[in-house]
């Protein structure tokens, strides 16, 4: 086993040591060290080891698209005027000339049609917002499915979860700013949701809009929320997210040489400085390319906000879809008690959204309670080794997707020529059925993958070459795994249900039964010994029959 540690690594820079650049660096380094203790920081950070895996890049994509949001956002604030003052449009876009619109919408048109590069930066801002949310979700579920939220990272999971919620707030407050018909109706929905809150609903709505909807206050207020409040909170939480990442050191996937007590990979300097730094430019480049070639949120097609029209096919940005889906699926339930109204057709979806988010946020604590496992866990699970967790994660995603699909039911109905009523009913049923089904299917799939991996660990790879003995027996030739390949298949921990009593509550006993009653026990060293003995015997028989030449007759004639 290589035990190179970062600090003892030999450098072959003797020849370069005398060059001018190095001398300049030394002078600069000395200057900084004496003022900001730069030396200590470099010593602490520069040779920190990070493991390498493609799935670790989703978080990076989220971070980088946030940086692009900041850059493009600063450009946009230079030209955007968050005012709801009504003006008459006289700009270059002919279809809207002479129309009444808010200054906010007019300045959005100016950015799009008159400022050079304005449309590009608008599209980059919108596209990177979509990429930001995709990356957050995928990163979050990478962490979920690999169990990377386990001790000591539970709090960082909460930080990441908060970033996801803030991302939604940032997105909604941002796409409302142009004050177009589409986003205006989005705000009107928010107004309706607030009014449904028992007792204080109408007060909340009045406070948000500074009077009745739409008023003249909401765009300037959302602007402050969008460019100051939310970004500041996101930046602060990103800082905490990163500090905790360095403190905990990154998790790694199981592999030979990787343990709970080490981290195997490459140093921050120079490898990740180049790779991760370079990756920022790649993400930036790809988002710019999309923005140069693909139009998004063409608000001039929607027109300025007016409370009377709405277009068919009104959908929010993708990450808000799920919040709209529940509102479409819920039947028209409303009750009046002592003359006061309870709008279940709004309150029930809100409660469901809250539960979905709440369960996600608290899952690490739930699972820790079930397993009672209080070790530090730095080696990730392979998702199929945690069938119930993986099943729950898939069920959550399916619930989310059903809600998101429900929010596009009108578009689906038109595209597939279905009745909107039938489709809504199908999705209502799917909301209850699909998560349960997908949980069981996922769990069973995980268990069969486990069975397959177990066979592979014991007997090696199937070679599809079968030898017939003189007695007529068929033996398939197996290629044994190397100990490095086998390690990944046998290293994982196994859990089993607990029975109630001896400090285990009956609720926890039931929970462990739900999580662990169906289990494929991992290969044990004695099982492997037995399997190896067996395959040694088999190999002996095969070698006698084939003379040690495993080629098929056809292959033999070819050469």
């Amino acid at each position: 086993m290589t035990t190179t540690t970062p600090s003892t690594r030999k450098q072959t820079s003797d020849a370069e040591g005398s060059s001018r650049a190095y001398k300049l660096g030394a002078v600069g380094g000395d200057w900084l060290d004496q003022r900001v203790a730069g030396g200590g920081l470099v010593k602490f950070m520069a040779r920190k080891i990070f493991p390498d895996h493609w799935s670790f890049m989703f978080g990076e994509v989220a971070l980088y698209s946030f940086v692009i949001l900041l850059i493009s956002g600063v450009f946009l604030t230079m030209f955007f005027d968050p005012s709801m003052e009504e003006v008459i449009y006289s700009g270059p876009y002919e279809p809207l000339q002479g129309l009444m619109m808010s200054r906010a919408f007019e300045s959005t048109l100016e950015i799009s049609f008159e400022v050079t590069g304005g449309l590009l930066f608008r599209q980059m801002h919108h596209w990177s917002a979509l990429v930001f949310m995709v990356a957050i979700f995928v990163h979050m579920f990478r962490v979920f499915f690999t169990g990377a939220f386990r001790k000591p990272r539970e709090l960082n999971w909460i930080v990441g979860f908060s970033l996801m919620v803030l991302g939604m707030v940032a997105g909604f407050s941002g796409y409302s700013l142009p004050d177009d018909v589409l986003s205006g109706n989005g705000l009107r929905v928010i107004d309706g949701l607030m009014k449904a809150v028992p007792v204080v609903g109408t007060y909340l709505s009045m406070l948000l809009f500074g009077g009745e909807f739409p008023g003249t206050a909401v765009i300037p207020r959302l602007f402050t929320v969008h460019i100051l409040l939310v970004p500041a909170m996101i930046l602060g939480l990103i800082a905490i997210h990163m500090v905790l990442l360095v403190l905990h050191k990154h998790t790694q996937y199981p592999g030979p040489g990787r343990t709970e007590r080490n981290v195997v990979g490459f140093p921050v300097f120079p490898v990740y400085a180049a790779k991760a730094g370079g990756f920022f430019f790649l993400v930036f480049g790809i988002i710019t390319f999309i923005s140069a070639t693909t139009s998004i949120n063409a608000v001039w097609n929607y027109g300025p906000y007016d409370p009377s029209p709405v277009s068919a096919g009104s959908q929010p940005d993708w990450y808000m879809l799920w919040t709209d889906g529940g509102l479409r699926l819920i039947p028209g339930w409303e009750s009046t008690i002592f003359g006061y109204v309870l709008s279940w057709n709004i309150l029930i979806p809100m409660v469901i959204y809250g539960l979905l988010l709440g369960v996600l946020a608290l899952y690490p604590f739930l699972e820790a309670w079930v397993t009672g496992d209080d070790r530090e866990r730095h080696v990730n699970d392979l998702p199929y080794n945690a069938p119930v967790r993986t099943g729950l994660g898939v069920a959550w995603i399916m619930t989310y997707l059903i809600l998101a699909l429900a929010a596009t039911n009108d578009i689906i109905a038109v595209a597939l020529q279905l009745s909107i009523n039938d489709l809504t009913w199908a999705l209502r049923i799917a909301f209850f059925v699909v998560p349960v089904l997908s949980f069981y299917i996922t769990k069973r799939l995980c268990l069969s993958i486990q069975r397959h991996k177990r066979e592979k660990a014991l007997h090696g790879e199937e070679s599809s070459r079968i030898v017939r003995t003189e007695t007529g027996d068929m033996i398939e030739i197996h290629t044994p795994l190397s100990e490095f390949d086998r390690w990944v298949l046998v290293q994982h921990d196994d859990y089993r249900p607990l029975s109630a009593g001896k400090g285990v509550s009956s609720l926890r006993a039931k929970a462990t039964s739900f999580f662990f009653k169906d289990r494929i026990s991992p290969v044990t060293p004695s099982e492997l010994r037995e399997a190896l003995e067996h395959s040694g015997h088999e190999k002996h028989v095969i070698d006698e029959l084939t003379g040690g030449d495993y080629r098929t007759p056809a292959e033999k004639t070819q050469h």
Partner: protein
Amino acid sequence: MNDNLDGSSPARGLSAIAPKEGGGFPNPGLPPHIHRQADLSKAAEKRAERLVASMFVLSIVGTVLFIAAYFLVTPTGINLFAEEGTPKALWWSNLTTGLGLAIAVFFIGAAAVHWAKTLMPDDEMVEERHDIRGSDETREIAAGIITDGLAESGIARRPVIVTAMVAALAALPIAVLAPLSTLGPLPGGRLHHTFWGQNARQRLARDHDGTPIKLSDVAMNSVFHVMPEGLTHETEHFLEERAKAAAVLVRIDPALSKNEESMAMGVEGVLAFSKICTHVGCPVALYEQQTHHMLCPCHQSTFDVTDGAKVIFGPAHRPLPQLPIEVDDEGYLVAPGDFTEPIGPSFWNIHKEK
């Protein structure tokens, strides 16, 4: 036997971890390192070096392209590819500046990543982890500092201060409510009334051009988007009033009616309903002439116009409030007063008179 696998005991006594036979398999350690082409062949190394350098050069080309396009392919001024000020000019401006910038940034990234992957050392390094928790000694010192500090503050000996402090800290957040309350006015009766109720017998006008509608204008099965005639840009709170007053006028065959009361509020099958959905307030903008259903495009609440706009599908609960109408001496449609009940999304005290 339910000990953690590292030998420690779980804090809660019993964990669900299954013990491993003989402590499980031994970790085989890092596998032998496989060298890359550029590590073995000088030619491959040179090739990689040239590729990295040329990608950096390509980025410079992108930067030049971006700057050139920014000044030579503009949406409103000079444009090399299209007549200035046309939509085509904007399209070219967006495309060329965008592609220039994309090339400029992408190839810096591609060069750096390729450099790292082919030329920087790729043998894996190992760093030991340390417990996140502090050592027992550190924890003892920390606990000592806290207990000493608490003792020095006298928090345990001075309950009066503590009580007063808790009260003060609990009271202060209430102060937040004061500035919060000034963000907007109280609703009062605003949500219960619309512009129709402000003046009796207002004419129904076509939305946008503002011309009044005669009964004779309303053909069978036709639909009009309607606003009060007096509601103009000069009206105070113009948009807020529009948001509430918006109505839809339809004419159906009276024989189809399932609702006498609703028909009585119309004239010869001409009926006016609020356009604002009673679910969350989207404009109910779609009218199906064949079925006489009105559909909200936001959440698909469907209202039956022949039955007093009752909900027949979707999340809305209350029917669309009806606007009673009459015909004046000149044959124009007028509304004697307001909608039959408050319009838009239901709220807590919607059924209370204001």
